[in-house]
């Protein structure tokens, strides 16, 4: 109980624990219900809808391999959403996680295939390179905001577009493109640069990898950073009240640059772990919209590291369960996108949930 009181103090000062936990839970259940209703309305039988519902749960948490898939899908979301949460705390709306993921991924691929190093060293080098390039890419937006006032929403969106084209360009460069292929695809990284699968000893098919553990370490680190360091204090002061932070002697320009770079660093790690743990090489669109899903995840988690962890796992579960749903009930994966969107709508409109279920909030 004390833990929850502690959490609620920082989670959000204006709301009760009840609302922090109940609203997302109700929003999720309601969204799944409406999603299935949509299925029935559009002509599927109730039978299929029920099969889909069961598949959604068994496919995400029903077995060890389902859980493995859920955590696998959650891993890059945790990193990227942590980055966005750091931005939120400092009052920055970072839309650029997608581009930062791409840059982080490019760096990881290049380090991964260019040379061989001893196992652990190579992996470390790859992750550092991904984090570094992601941070550099986000730094551009932070620096522009701090020096010229250019709004980060605009600059990060533009940098996303540039990142897509940059990726296309890179994948066609002879030094990067896989030998003997005409389509844009990079060389594969060496085994020494791969993140090991953590449940390998149980079943080599379980894909969940070391990245998930690193992501949890990142959650703890970001939590410590935001709430227990001077830098985190500066982030939050600048984000909550710019005038007061200036009055308190905080260099807000520097704070904005650091926060943005840190956001990019985490998103870059998302790209690097995805390359190193799952994909092994880069293709056009390897970022798969993770940077955008992460915005939703960060909002759902209320920009709190622990909230981000749980909402990443929820989104991971929707992705993993959605695939199972597609297989066993022949329902399109797009339904998951609808459910995700509905969750966000309900989260953004908590009053709606309160009106619909008044007895829960008594």
């Amino acid at each position: 109980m004390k833990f929850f009181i502690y959490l609620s103090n920082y989670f959000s000062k204006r709301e009760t624990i009840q609302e922090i936990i109940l609203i997302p839970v109700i929003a999720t259940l309601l969204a799944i219900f409406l999603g299935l209703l949509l299925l029935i309305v559009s002509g599927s039988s109730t039978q299929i809808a029920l099969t889909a519902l069961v598949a959604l749960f068994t496919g995400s948490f029903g077995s060890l391999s389902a859980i493995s898939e859920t955590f696998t899908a959650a891993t890059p979301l945790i990193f990227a959403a942590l980055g966005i949460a750091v931005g939120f705390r400092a009052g920055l709306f970072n839309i650029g996680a997608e581009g930062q993921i791409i840059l982080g991924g490019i760096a990881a691929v290049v380090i991964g295939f260019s040379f061989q190093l001893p196992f652990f060293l190579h992996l470390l080098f790859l992750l550092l390179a991904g984090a570094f390039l992601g941070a550099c890419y986000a730094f551009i937006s932070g620096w522009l905001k701090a020096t010229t006032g250019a709004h980060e929403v605009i600059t990060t969106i533009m940098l996303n577009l540039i990142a897509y084209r940059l990726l296309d360009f890179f994948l066609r460069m002879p030094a990067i493109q896989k030998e003997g292929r005409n389509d844009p695809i990079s060389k594969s990284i060496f085994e020494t640069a791969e993140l090991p699968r953590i449940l390998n000893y149980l079943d080599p098919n379980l894909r969940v990898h070391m990245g998930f553990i690193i992501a949890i370490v990142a959650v703890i680190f970001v939590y410590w950073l935001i709430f227990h360091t001077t830098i985190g204090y500066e982030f939050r002061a600048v984000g909550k009240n710019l005038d007061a932070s200036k009055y308190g002697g905080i260099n807000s320009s520097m704070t904005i640059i650091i926060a943005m770079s840190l956001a990019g660093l985490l998103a870059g790690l998302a790209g690097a772990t995805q390359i190193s743990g799952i994909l092994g090489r880069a293709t056009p669109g390897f970022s798969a919209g993770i940077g955008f899903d992460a915005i939703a995840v960060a909002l759902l988690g209320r920009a709190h590291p622990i909230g981000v962890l749980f909402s990443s796992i929820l989104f991971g579960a929707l992705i993993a369960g959605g695939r199972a749903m597609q297989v066993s009930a022949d329902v399109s994966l797009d339904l998951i996108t609808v459910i995700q969107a509905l969750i966000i709508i309900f989260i953004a409109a908590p009053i709606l949930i309160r009106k619909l279920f008044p007895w829960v909030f008594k």
Partner: protein
Amino acid sequence: MKLKLNEISKSFGPVKANSKINLIVDRGEILGLLGENGAGKTTLMNILTGLYKPDSGKILINDKLKEFDNPREANQNGVGMVHQHFMLVPVFSVTENIILGTEPTTIFNKIDLTNAKEKILKISSEYNLDVDPDQLIEKLPVGIQQRVEIIKILFRDAEILIFDEPTAVLTPQEVVEFFEIIKNLKKAGKAIIFITHKLHEVLEICDRINVLRSGKIVGEELPKKTNKKKLAELMVGRKVNLKTTRQNIEKGEVLLEVNNLSILSDNKEPLLSNVDLRLHQNEILGIAGVQGNGQTEFIEAVTGLRKISSGKISYFGKECKNFSPRKIHQLGVRHIPEDRQKQGLIGDFSLTENIILNTYYEKTFSNNIALNWSNAKEEAKRIIEKFDVRTNSEEISADKLSGGNQQKLLIGREMSRSINLLIASQPTRGVDVGSIEYIHNQIVMARNKGIGVLLNSTELDEIIALSDRIIVFYEGRVIAEFPSNADPNTIGLAMAGVN
């Protein structure tokens, strides 16, 4: 029209904002509604103007039961309100602002400005308001803008007029004119509710005074049969001392010297021109002036929050060229900013987090990387206790405190650590009478200990009560200097630019 409120109650969760309030205003009468911040004045008026619905109780106009679902319905029933913060569109003309929302139209929905203008001129001359309907709002001084607000509600045929802290933004001269206007309205048979926390105003202008405390009417007084002290005690609920005692002390050496300070705005208009001043040890230097005459910019400049265009600022004999706010803080200069919610505190932060706002990086609270929350917490507890901040925990967020307690927290933070000089801007704005007494005593005590105090306030009474020396800002210049025993009327005239 006659307004009667019968047993009005309204709660927000567990908080009873209004409980069983009875109130009557008749035509041709001015009712003063006196109460501290948070006493429930605003809630009551929001009920009366249709913004909130009461939980129970009745609103009777001319003895007929009324229910307002929204402000428009209240309007149609003759209730009009002049808000403390004006609701005007700066780039619209007076006429356009007044008709906004009830635009009279001719054929094809064309706005009928000619008729509207005529009606405005008629109202203006009837009550001696003297407003040009074609002027743009942004070109008008605050006093005239307030008259536009008054015309706005008269244009909608309001018979019951509510004024919320109407004198807060006016110069002493404008207050005199405003009272004339109110008297005219009274003569014309309007029923008027005058909300304020200024005791001398209710005594001067009202026919009856109702005092509100913690959501209840705690007293009804007649101005002739009561006095400031009695009203203040009703407001606060305990004995208060309205006069701050201040002995004369020999002033010490110069702490702050400002020479020829000028500041230009972004579009090169002068905000401050050639300001000179000196502040000594054991001295309270009062800066008087109507808001918006350069005081804010001046305070920002000497605290490092604003870049100066030319001139010199020296603390303790050393010039501080382009010093950051942190560097100036490190000199022992403490700043109580004029807007505690916008600048002095972070509303969403806990009291502990707020206590370390400008010292979080110091050795006591951090090792350069990690914060030492237990030290911060102890410091917060100490300040809460020493400065009498009413709260049950140092972990609640600052915006949960009342205005007075927020200000005490802020003053506690600034005055509890080593301090050489205090810059206090509007230290008692929106603070209850009981806390004002406390804050004034703290400031005088600091001065007695050898600290120099720069006191910036738009409340002339406060300046006169506390200052050893008074300077007046007008249009970015220091236009006059007075000793502490100067005649308030002369200072008032200087504030209006007459020298």
